[in-house]
């Protein structure tokens, strides 16, 4: 954790991370790493579907299902995908590949890269013990930097933080 005691005007932020799909992984990691770069003391609490973001091997998926606002740039226009098309076999995987290609092409960081930056910036990453139990994740499958905690661990941090986000 960043030693903020000696920094004038030091701030702190906590983020509850509840979603682990490729698209939803971005907001918490972008804000967490950027805040840390701006000398903010950051704590991220990974729970439910956010917890797989702390697995050593990331294999993030993306689905257009249930997301009518998703519009992929396509031949100068935009293409949304009706749910019934998104449900067809292979369409989800294809959309995921498209998204990853787009991310690379536009110079957007990968989640792996952002997580590495979070580790380097000493962002405190807490894995939810209850979620580990519930979905039977093994400690050794998760990154070494993960600390384990529960709701009270989060609350203690949140009560001291200037900013608390739920994503």
């Amino acid at each position, binding site marked *: 954790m960043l030693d903020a005691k000696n920094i004038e005007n030091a701030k702190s932020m906590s983020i509850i991370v509840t979603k682990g799909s490729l698209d939803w992984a971005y907001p918490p990691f972008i804000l967490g790493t950027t805040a840390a*770069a701006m*000398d903010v003391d950051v704590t991220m609490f990974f729970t439910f579907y956010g917890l797989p973001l702390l697995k050593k091997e990331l294999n993030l998926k993306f689905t257009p299902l249930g997301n009518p606002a998703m519009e992929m740039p396509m031949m100068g226009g935009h293409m949304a995908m009706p749910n019934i098309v998104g449900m067809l076999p292979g369409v989800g995987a294809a959309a995921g590949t498209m998204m990853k290609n787009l991310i690379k092409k536009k*110079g*957007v*960081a990968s989640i792996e890269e952002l997580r590495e*930056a979070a580790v380097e910036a000493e962002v405190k990453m807490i894995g939810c013990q209850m979620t580990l139990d519930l979905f039977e994740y093994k400690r050794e499958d998760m990154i070494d930097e993960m600390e384990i905690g529960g709701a009270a661990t989060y609350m203690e941090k949140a009560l001291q933080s200037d900013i608390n986000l739920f994503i």
Partner: protein
Amino acid sequence: MADQTLNAEGLNCPLPILRAKKAIKGMSSGQILEIRATDPGSVADFAAFCNQTGNALVSSSSEGDIYKFEIKVS
């Protein structure tokens, strides 16, 4: 003259800021870091970054599609 330069061309938010922070960490007070970026959002972002971290944004300019920033490390 800059003491160090950072090429952030082609990188999108928040990578230019993260790379700049990393570079600044390895520099000493009073040194100048020059950054070249292509992300139009970096103009507002480097101003905010410097405002918050206390490093001085000595210059912010653009030449064509390239944005150039000079940061004096605090």
